[in-house]
């Protein structure tokens, strides 16, 4: 027989207290962390693309750093990139923010945090440590005349192609369309494009307007008084989101295909070309086994220039309320050191936003070619812009949902261009657009 025993108030409180203490202990243990000694630096970042890259990130950012700087313990907290935005805003306002974090550098991202006074100025750190970030890249993390971030990656949007399916690199859009028709005839999908997440379309748009307007033309819109409803912009929208859709150059149901699924079409050889960023190089190297991959900048559109979009990806920022500002600066400085940057390039095939000696670098051929191409990015004017990292969120939202509407035929290219201009005017009025210097 089960005996019942009344629990006295004191026992109840004791048990409750023990339970709470246990929960607290478990909670503390669940926070994770890294073995090391001394001061703790909290680093908040996005998870790497693949698990092997995630392991490499821990090796470089945690283990190697702690070995070089034994007085620090680096606690690395990684969340999926798409969740970073929601988490970081709340964390920075709390009393326990990360000391250093990686985040997009655009005005709708880092700019908003700087305006809210949540970021630590890095003017002194730049001077003291002599960080040699490319000027144009540094400008991307400068808000209201003060530099708040350290750009850590340069990107370019290019056209990857399957060398077995594309015998010759097209020089004009007419050549490209001819090639796409041939590929369709062979039962292949010309372009691996999926826009379920909505942002992939902004890369195509960047390619289109960068070619149509060139760097200078884009500067005149972004920093001057030119408009987004210009005929060149309408042409770019029409080409990528109406004409190519109508001609069947993308897989069916493109708005319901994810970026990853579209990439898989390319990796598996079902699609011949893939217009995306250099951030995909390492995944291509890991995933493609049966054919060789090359790349080319998107060709001239009706005699336009060829100005592939390039720019800064993410940057490193220090929280205004960082518990250990010095530690955060030490960590950034470590990441910018030549040997660390070389290691990052070898492991992740990403391009740093500062000069690095690339002699003897052990990297795949595809990455080497990308690197050579991007080395031109220091030459102003050679490249266009990746638009969505420069434009405010209200503009990006019109881009993201609007291009889906153009794809489905619910909106015309000129209507979309007008809506982009309206959103831009609104952002300009409220001071949310980027500044040049």
């Amino acid at each position, binding site marked *: 027989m089960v005996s019942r025993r009344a629990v006295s108030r004191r026992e109840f409180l004791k048990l409750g207290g023990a339970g709470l203490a246990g929960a607290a202990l478990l909670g503390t243990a669940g926070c994770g962390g890294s073995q090391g000694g001394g001061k703790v630096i909290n680093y908040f970042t996005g998870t790497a693309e693949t698990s092997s890259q995630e392991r490499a990130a821990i090796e470089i950012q945690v283990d190697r750093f702690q070995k070089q700087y034994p007085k620090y313990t680096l606690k690395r907290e990684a969340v999926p990139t798409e969740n970073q935005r929601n988490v970081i805003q709340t964390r920075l306002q709390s009393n326990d923010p990360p000391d250093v974090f990686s985040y997009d550098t655009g005005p709708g991202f880092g700019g*908003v945090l700087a305006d809210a006074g949540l970021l630590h100025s890095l003017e002194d750190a730049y001077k003291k440590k002599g960080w040699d970030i490319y000027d144009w890249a540094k400008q991307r993390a400068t808000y209201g005349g003060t530099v708040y971030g350290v750009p850590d990656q340069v990107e370019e949007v290019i056209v990857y192609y399957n060398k077995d399916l594309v015998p010759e690199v097209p020089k004009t859009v007419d050549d490209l369309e001819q090639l796409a028709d041939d590929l369709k005839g062979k039962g292949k999908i010309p372009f691996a494009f999926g826009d*379920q997440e909505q942002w992939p379309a902004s890369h195509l748009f960047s390619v289109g307007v960068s070619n149509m307007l060139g760097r200078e033309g884009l500067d005149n819109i972004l920093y001057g008084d030119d408009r987004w409803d210009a005929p060149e912009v309408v042409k770019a929208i029409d080409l990528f989101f109406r004409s190519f859709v109508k001609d069947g150059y993308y897989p069916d*149901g493109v*708005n*319901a295909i994810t970026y990853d699924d579209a990439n898989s079409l390319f990796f598996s050889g079902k699609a011949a070309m893939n217009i995306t960023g250099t951030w995909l190089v390492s995944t291509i190297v890991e995933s493609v086994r049966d054919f060789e991959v090359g790349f080319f900048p998107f060709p001239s559109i009706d005699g336009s220039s060829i100005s592939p979009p390039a720019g800064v990806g993410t940057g490193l920022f220090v929280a205004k309320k960082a518990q250990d500002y010095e530690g955060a600066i030490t960590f950034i400085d470590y990441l910018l050191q030549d040997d660390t940057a070389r290691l990052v390039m070898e492991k992740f095939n990403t391009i740093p936003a500062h000069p690095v000696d690339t002699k003897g670098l052990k990297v795949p051929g595809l990455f080497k070619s990308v690197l050579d191409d991007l080395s031109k990015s220091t030459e102003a004017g050679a490249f266009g812009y990746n638009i969505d990292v420069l434009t405010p*969120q209200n503009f990006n*939202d019109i881009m993201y949902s609007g291009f889906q*509407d153009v794809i*489905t035929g*619910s909106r015309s290219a000129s209507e979309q261009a007008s809506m982009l201009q309206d959103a831009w005017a609104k952002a300009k009025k409220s001071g949310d657009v980027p500044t040049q210097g």
Partner: protein
Amino acid sequence: MKEAGTQTEGGGQALAPRRKRGFASVPALRRQQAYYGALFVVPGLIVYLIFMVYPFLDTIYLSFTNWNGVATSKDWVGLSNYARMFADGAALKAFANNVVWVILGTISPVVIGLFEALLVWSGARASLFFRVLFFLPFVLPLVVIGIVWQWIYNPLFGVVNKVLDGAGLEGVSRGWLADPHTALYAVLIAAIWGASGFCFLILHASLQNVDMSTVEASMIDGANWFQRAWSIVVPQIAPQLTMVTAVTLIGGFSVFDIIYVMTGGGPGNASEVLATYTYKTAFEQNEAGYGSALAMLITVLSLISAFVFVRVRERQR
């Protein structure tokens, strides 16, 4: 053996203190019960106040400001966020989608759940199998349901298109979630399947209390299956039916997860509902003030619809 309290004198003396003691102990016991009651309620109440009441009141306040969700300053803008709502095409489109969702997404799972519950209850063969089958959607989180149905509809490898193609209906197959004419309904079908599990569970449980003698009497009187179900069984489970409908109805105005996972409100804003639009406004566009006003609209709509539905139902009874 003498029983206590039966003695004339001593017993009277014995009864008196016992009675006195008994009367005196009632308020003490109540006080003790109230004390323990409060002890158990207070932690929950504190949690409720902190995590429900305070954010709710704060949201009302924020809806009158232009806070961007990050800045320390919040400027009072009066009713302008509410005025903006009525001129915002995207918000009106989201509201219209919500109305479709509430109507179809409330009626369908309740009807399906009721039919499934009656089928199992009426002793159909393999009822255990059907019980598990119908119960299954209840145990799956909506996010999982969303992901699975996203695969089902996938234009590259989805089952729906494969079956249609196999049946020679290539002209019908399409990117169901990519087409603005089908996206909302495709998500709705997944959500109806998900919600039917809950309806089945509650209604099946309520059917166990149906008075079988009335059912048997109606059978003797010659009522068919539908007549028995509609006139004898359903009135007996009316309270549970009301509860299930009210819960599904309220959920219809605050639906978020399955749409966010399956379409993100797209293509364009074809499947946007108020909750996904609110999320985008508040957390992606950094317009927390306006987002709060939209959140208040969802709350008011949910409360009104639930109140009206329950009142109508009570009047009918």
